[in-house]
């Protein structure tokens, strides 16, 4: 792979705090290596800003290996930037060329208010999990792990759904700001497994109710979420969420 260096123009959303009105600022970065990750390019920019006596750009990041789900940038019109099945931290500067202008915005969603610059508050996801994204088993109550065999296909499907990193790219991407992929993934994982059966109906009803309460939009099946999900979570999980919801709604005795 040929290494090269580039000069770039960055147009970045700056917002002092959640109440402030934000705006775009333009920055130049020079001599960026194609080997750098996108966030390392931001590190360079921030160092530059600090030296110049300006305030660095706040952005969320932690593991920088694509698994913690903390990084969250809308880069050139796409969640996590141009590469498929990829997080912002794993995006590398090879994706760009000398002279490019890159526009960077925070996730935009009613349920993800901006905290500062590119940082948003995704605690709504935690509250959805609190509404039912678990199996109620106290520590020490478990039977032997091999006591319940699980169909390999179900186990594999559950795993594929559980691979969600909760980054919120699905919400950021969806034109409706819907969280159905996130909720669908968790509902699917737990309803596919025998351990998840006792709470199956209540779980989906409560999680969907919380999702609506948080102000997420509705799914209109554009499937943009699946295309932009860094972990490739399938929209089959949304269908499963729908069918679980319909079944649970019909069988529920609550009015």
């Amino acid at each position: 792979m040929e290494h090269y260096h580039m000069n770039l123009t960055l147009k970045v959303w700056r917002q002092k705090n959640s109440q402030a009105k934000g705006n775009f600022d333009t920055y130049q970065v020079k001599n960026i290596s194609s080997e750098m990750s996108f966030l390392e390019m931001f590190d360079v920019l921030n160092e530059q800003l600090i030296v110049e006596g300006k305030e660095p750009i706040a952005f969320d990041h932690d593991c920088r290996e694509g698994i913690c789900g903390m990084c969250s940038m809308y880069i050139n019109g796409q969640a996590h930037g141009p590469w498929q099945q990829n997080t912002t931290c794993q995006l590398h500067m090879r994706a760009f060329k000398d002279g490019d202008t890159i526009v960077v915005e925070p996730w935009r969603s009613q349920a993800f208010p901006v905290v500062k610059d590119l940082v948003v508050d995704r605690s709504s996801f935690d509250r959805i999990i609190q509404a039912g994204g678990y199996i109620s088993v106290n520590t020490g109550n478990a039977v032997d792990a091999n006591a319940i065999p699980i169909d390999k296909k179900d186990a594999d499907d559950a795993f594929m759904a559980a691979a969600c990193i909760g980054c919120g790219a699905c919400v950021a991407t969806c034109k409706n700001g819907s969280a159905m992929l996130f909720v669908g993934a968790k509902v699917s994982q737990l309803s596919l497994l025998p351990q998840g059966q006792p709470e199956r109906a209540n779980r989906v009803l409560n999680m969907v109710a919380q999702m609506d309460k948080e102000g997420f939009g509705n799914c209109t099946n554009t499937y943009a979420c699946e295309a932009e999900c860094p972990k490739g979570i399938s929209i089959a999980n949304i269908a499963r969420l729908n069918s679980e919801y319909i079944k649970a709604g019909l069988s529920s005795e609550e009015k």
Partner: protein
Amino acid sequence: MGLTGIFLITFLIVHAGVNACIFLNDGGATFNEFAHFMSHNWIVRFLEIGLFVGLITHIIQGLLLWKQNNAARPVGYYYNKPSKNSNWYSRSMGILGTLLLLFLIMHLYHFFIGTKVALYSGDRPHNLYEEMKLVFANQWVVIAYLVGVVALFWHLYHGFQSAFQTLGVNHKKYTPIIKMLGLGYSVIICVLFALMPVAIYLKWIA
């Protein structure tokens, strides 16, 4: 949305079926016979109420979705490239639906009101076929109908498979079949609908 959508999809099959009778080229005899049956049979008229309820529900659901979904993103993106992750028509169901609604108003004005007036104003026999020929003699009406049919095609093409997804059907084996069916259905229905005004305007049928 999915449920009312599927209901409306089934209606279109009947509608297109009856319309297709004009291509028997019998001067509209069969067509008029069916049209008469559809407007006079009390079961059909009862179903008609259901149809309107379904249609209005579909519209109200659509408006609610539009409102809620807009509220879910009060601040939009400055730079957005949705074409990278989704098809334009899947994102444009609201616009397509609005176009269809406008089309529908025109369509009802052309054919539905006349039929109803005829039905309640006595026993003067109503020749829908002749009325159709009259309406489709105007090239602007034909063009408007074609626009409506194109909007219908994309609306159906997305809506057909989308309805199944909404109702919780997504299967490795069957979903591709559903998608093929949806495409076939949308093409056949829309071609049939488009052929009517065109055939009459170009005088392919008597």
